[in-house]
């Protein structure tokens, strides 16, 4: 067939046809191969540099946080000011007992439920039911920054009294918050659930017991 002859003609003449190649063609081949090899190494270099950057930045952030922690000196509570040293060990909390007139009425009402006693007495009477303290054996002298007490509202209520449980636990990664900051924040968050008077009395009880517990341990 004529058509096949065309195929044959072209195949015969062109199949082994050769054309002059540029002098630098092989150099270009080598350059392309070299470029590809370098590209293969590229992601590893990126991964390495990114990981180094991450480690450095984590280190910086960690140091910054530590520096910030040591600067905390004053924490304002709802109706008082507690000052303590830069050393992160809690000193005697001084609670301002002055209460505005309106709140005083509420305080009186609440005091019917919670007997206004001295901190020592209160702890002696109500210690067992007011606070359940876990892992006491692991509790060192003073407030250790590694032992972060977590305040939880007890599900059990006694005659309208607010019972707050203190759960002590070793905090390996919770160094960012001071004990009192954390306690105060927790109390603030509880304020939405309970009346202010109940909360205040609970807070007073809590600090009194904490202080007393501290004293006991020192003795």
């Amino acid at each position, binding site marked *: 067939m004529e058509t096949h*002859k065309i195929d044959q*003609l072209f195949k015969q003449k062109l199949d082994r*046809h*050769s054309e002059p*190649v540029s002098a630098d063609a*092989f150099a270009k*081949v080598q350059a392309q*191969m070299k470029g590809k090899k370098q590209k293969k190494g590229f992601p590893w270099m990126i991964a390495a540099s990114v990981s180094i950057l991450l480690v450095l930045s984590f280190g910086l952030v960690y140091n910054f946080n530590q520096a910030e922690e040591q600067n905390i000196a004053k924490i304002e509570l709802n109706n008082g000011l507690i000052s303590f040293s830069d050393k992160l060990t809690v000193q005697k909390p001084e609670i301002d007992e002055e209460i505005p007139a309106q709140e005083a009425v509420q305080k009186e009402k609440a005091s019917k439920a919670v007997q206004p006693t001295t901190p020592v007495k209160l702890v002696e009477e109500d210690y067992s039911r007011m606070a359940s303290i876990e892992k006491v054996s692991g509790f060192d002298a003073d407030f250790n920054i590694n032992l972060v007490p977590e305040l939880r509202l007890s599900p059990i209520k006694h005659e309208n009294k607010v019972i707050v449980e203190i759960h002590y636990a070793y905090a390996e990664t919770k160094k960012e918050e001071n004990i009192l900051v954390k306690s105060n924040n927790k109390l603030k968050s509880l304020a939405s659930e309970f009346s202010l008077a109940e909360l205040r009395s609970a807070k007073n009880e809590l600090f009194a017991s904490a202080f007393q517990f501290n004293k006991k341990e020192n003795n």
Partner: protein
Amino acid sequence: MKVFINKSKTEEDLIAGCIKQKASAQRALFDKYSGRMLSLCRRYVKDVLEAEGVMITAFTKIFERIDQYTGEGNFEGWMKRIMVNESLQYLRKHKNMQLNIDIEEAHHLPNLDAMEDHLQTEDLMQLIAELPVGYRTVFNLYAIEGFSHKEIAEQLKINENTSKSQLSRARVYLQKRLAEMEQEIAISHGNS
């Protein structure tokens, strides 16, 4: 006095050297085949510089994958397949695969046997370059590389019938152009 004897290396030696990524073996292989491979690429990609670029990229792939050559079949055939694939990839990338261009039929059929001696390969290369890219690709793949219509259809992602019609149209065009050339040859012979 030292006498350097240039031992001609066998193809197996060259391949073994290339597997070991020896630059001298790569150079020898390149020198041996690059002219033919450039000609192949130019049948698909008209522009010489572009065709050479395609050939260079294909050679880098050959050197990178040479350990995948199992030794079965013709080594040159294996290289040619990589060249063809690279050329098709270039055409796909540049999306100039026009498949439907009508070509007028030749008024008379040329006597190819008589013409064969007078035809230069460059003339035939020129005729192929004149073909629309769709016809050219199918004609190259079928007539010169020896692919079947089924294989062409898979490669170009076209219908098998489209491949057949492209081939017959390419042949019609080439016949017409060869007939014209025959007349030119007859005139020049008549004059001389």
